[in-house]
């Protein structure tokens, strides 16, 4: 071994063997860099008490402590863009989906839909049929139907409760409340939010805020 390397291998830093000191410094530097990046993301996207998520097709503000998961589905029948949002502590979440023009045509043709109301009813029935696989005794109750403003577009909405529609891991059934909204034009824009039992009512104001802040591009 050369004298230079031998000399190096006798060195200490902060009274520690050099490799241990380098190991600790590296960890601190990496954690520091990670924190700086998180802080930069925070300052870039924070808008008051909310974060603003900007995607290709929509911008949305959501509470800072919520989970948000943007996704894209691209194929030959058109593109769909969506965001899933929800509180990590409640059994409630929200979905926003935007179809491009080709995906809109495919969606309407495949499901024999003509307008926003038929799309809302179709999605409600599809959900109910799905819950029947979990609990055959689940019953569907429509609570409210009407029109709603969605990012400047007038859409249709239905609020429904599926009694016994949500079955937890213990096999206990809960009422599951859903609100579906659809706008059908040259593009389809759909919003759905749901909650299990009381979780729906605890989240509904936040859902409405998110809906009002959403901007379709």
């Amino acid at each position: 071994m050369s004298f230079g390397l031998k000399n190096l291998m006798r060195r200490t830093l902060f009274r520690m063997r050099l490799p241990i000191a380098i190991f600790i410094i590296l960890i601190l530097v990496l954690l520091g860099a990670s924190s700086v990046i998180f802080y930069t993301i925070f300052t870039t996207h924070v808008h008051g008490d909310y974060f603003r998520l900007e995607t290709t097709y929509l911008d949305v503000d959501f509470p800072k402590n919520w989970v948000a998961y943007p996704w894209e589905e691209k194929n030959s029948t058109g593109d769909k863009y969506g965001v899933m949002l929800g509180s990590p502590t409640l059994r409630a979440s929200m979905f926003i989906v935007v179809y491009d023009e080709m995906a809109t045509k495919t969606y309407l043709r495949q499901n024999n839909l003509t307008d926003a109301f038929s799309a809302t009813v179709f999605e409600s029935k599809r959900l109910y049929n799905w819950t029947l696989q979990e609990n055959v005794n689940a019953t569907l109750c429509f609570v409210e139907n009407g029109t709603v403003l969605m990012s400047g577009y007038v859409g249709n909405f239905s609020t429904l409760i599926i009694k016994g529609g949500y079955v937890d891991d213990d096999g206990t059934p809960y009422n599951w409340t859903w609100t579906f909204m659809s706008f059908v034009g040259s593009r389809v824009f759909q919003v759905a939010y749901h909650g299990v039992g009381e979780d729906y009512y605890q989240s509904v104001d936040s859902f409405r805020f998110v809906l009002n802040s959403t901007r379709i591009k």
Partner: protein
Amino acid sequence: MRFDSSMYSVLLHMALGGAICLFTMYILLSISPLGIEMILFNLGCFGLVAFSESVNALSLFLLGTTYLPSGFLGGLYTGYKIKENLRIILVIPALIGVLGLIALRFFTGYINLSSFNFQNEVFIPFLGGVIGVFLGGYAMNWETEEAESSEAIELDPSQIKS
């Protein structure tokens, strides 16, 4: 025969070092992401993980809290048991650890080939594993090397006198 047994011993300790590296990576990899999520949740900004830039921050966090310490532990064991040719030998536990982790994650379904991320699944674990193993291995041999070098210096004056 003696050569064979020492060779066998070296191979065994390299494999054990790699196994320590792999085991620690696997354990820490299930704890560290939960740790950062808990920190962000308690700071009231859990939504930060929604932004694509957070992937880099999470990669650096995992490099510092999972891959580097795992490699370091594997290197400590290997360096404690093996004292020669560290520069070459220490690569093996790192490779065993990283390749084992990739294989383990692939067969348990964590790695999806359709959305395979080379940086996060290969480069960062490899970088952390190799650096960690070398730091651990040399940390274990630091004093030994110092003692050897001091002995060598004592011999020099006698050689000059004669």
